[in-house]
């Protein structure tokens, strides 16, 4: 078991944002979380990566509890996060972005004095190839298109070599072709890492949801199951209908 969450709850100003009874993820599993706006999907990821502190509950990652640890400690344990809004270092080149992310000793003295470990250059070039940024390696990250920034951020997270990748809306703002490529990349990544993906785009979910899909509504887990089962579930359809997002019906 890579991740096990029990009785996790957090509220903001009296509003219960998340109240999760039980959630678990196998190693090398790709899980998609869907749910209407405000269902607590991003909050869940915020808690997992240490950005938000939960009120109650337990999180066990890779056999060790992570509650109360800082973002850095959690990142060191092997949880990488990609945010909904691309968060890269716009002032640095794509190469430098990837260099900073790559797994190595990250204390002040190492950064100041030691040379780059062997193999890092190749690792970065291989990753750039994988996300299609080879020709943009020496461009400033701030000058990239939105889709390219999304890919760069995925590359940043993957280069940290985490056990668990938290990917928040990777296909947002991408063309269909780009989204498909992203989906292929995520499927490939799930062969080596545990991956949790939040997504709204049902075409995209259909592409990547090879195993389970979890549905979050109002901070609670509504159901968990294969995509076909989830999409035909009456409760899930009810949740999505009556809202702007009626994509489920169309499928």
């Amino acid at each position, binding site marked *: 078991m890579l991740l096990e969450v029990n009785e996790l709850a957090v509220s903001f100003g009296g509003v219960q944002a998340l109240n999760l009874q039980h959630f678990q993820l196998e190693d090398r599993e790709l899980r998609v979380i869907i749910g209407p706006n405000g269902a607590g999907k991003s909050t869940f990821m915020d808690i997992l990566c240490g950005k938000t502190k939960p009120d109650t509950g337990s999180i066990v990652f890779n056999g060790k509890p992570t509650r109360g640890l800082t973002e850095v400690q959690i990142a060191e344990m092997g949880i990488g996060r990609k945010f909904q809004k691309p968060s890269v*270092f716009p002032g640095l080149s794509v190469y430098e972005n990837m260099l900073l992310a790559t797994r190595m000793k990250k204390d002040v003295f190492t*950064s100041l004095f030691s040379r780059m470990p062997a193999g890092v250059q190749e690792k970065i070039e291989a990753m750039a190839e994988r996300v299609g940024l080879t020709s943009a390696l020496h461009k400033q990250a701030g000058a990239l298109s939105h889709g390219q920034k999304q890919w760069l951020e995925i590359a940043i997270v993957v280069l940290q070599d985490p056990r668990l990748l938290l990917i928040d809306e990777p296909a947002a703002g991408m063309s269909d072709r780009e989204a498909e490529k992203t989906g292929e990349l995520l499927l490939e990544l799930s062969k080596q890492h545990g991956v949790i993906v939040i997504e709204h785009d049902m075409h995209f979910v259909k592409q990547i949801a090879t195993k389970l899909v979890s549905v979050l509504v109002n901070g609670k887990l509504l159901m968990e199951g294969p995509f076909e089962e989830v999409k035909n579930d009456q409760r899930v359809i009810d949740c999505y209908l009556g809202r702007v997002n009626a994509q489920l019906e169309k499928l």
Partner: protein
Amino acid sequence: MQLKPAKLINILFILFFAVVLPVGNMLGLVSVNSISLWGRYFCFAIAALGIDLIWGYTGIMSMCQAFFFCLGGYCMGMHLLLKATALQQQLLPEFMTWNDITTLPWFWEPFHGFVPALVLSLLVPAAVAFVIGYFIFRSRIKGVYMAIITQALALSMYLLFLRNETNLGGTNGLTNFKTLLGFELHKPGTKLGLYLVTLAMLCVAYGCCYKIVHSKFGKVLQAIRDSEPRVGYTAYRVLHYKLAAFVVAAALGGLAGMLYVPQTGIITPGRMDVKASVEMLMWVALGGRGNLKGAVIGALLVNCVYSYCTSVFPQGWLFILGMLYILTVLYFDKGFLGLFEKIGSKIGIKTNSERYATGSK
């Protein structure tokens, strides 16, 4: 190897200040006064390098650099004053006698020797910055709050140093220095020597800063400026990095102050008030922040113009500085250096930053 414009500027700079000016001085073409003036500008440039590191590269607006500058200055000033006192065969500096103090306060004791004074003028600012920085950065104080808290610190320290009870000369500060390592400070030869030492230290400081900002450490600093949370999720301990940058900046300030005092002959709390720190920020903003050359050029140029303007039309200086600042903010946000680069690219010299933006190697 082909000579790049950036390298050419460095060589021209050193050639002019290390050869042309001193030789001109020996031939009697350049006055000792202007040599000494440039020596002091170099001190300001060193302090500006520190600001560029913490503000330009890391994005932390520290408004107490002048305080660190003065800490270094006071350390050196205490040593010089003790030497002068010994030369006049007195036991205590004059201001202490005036204040009815009969024994030398304990914290003056280490400053009898030159080497301890030298080390302390770097160590004291660095240590103070470490303690203050640790609490500020641990509480995740950022942005405008950081500016306010450092400004408050500068003000409170200014008020502390103003007091006679602090035993650092109060409002009048420390003055009446006579010798440094046996050289008489008022002699032209000593002044030229100090000028050259300061120039050398500026080059060393520039070299160190250059190494720092081009190392991975420097990239992390820029990453903190761009997107601090992302740095944390990438498993860097932001606190350590900010603290290291803050301490290095403070030590540079101390170094600058230490070199400044023997050349000026006086250090007073007036050098560390809030205005002094703001002025230092302005040098960097006008020169071009996030660029080491910009910091140096800004400090030198603004002080040059300052000296010129205050002698020609004393009342106008602040208006000129204000105008320059507004123009910089409105039209060339990369400062003088950005302006030069723009002009350079118009006449066909391709600069580093452009090559960077277009992505060619």
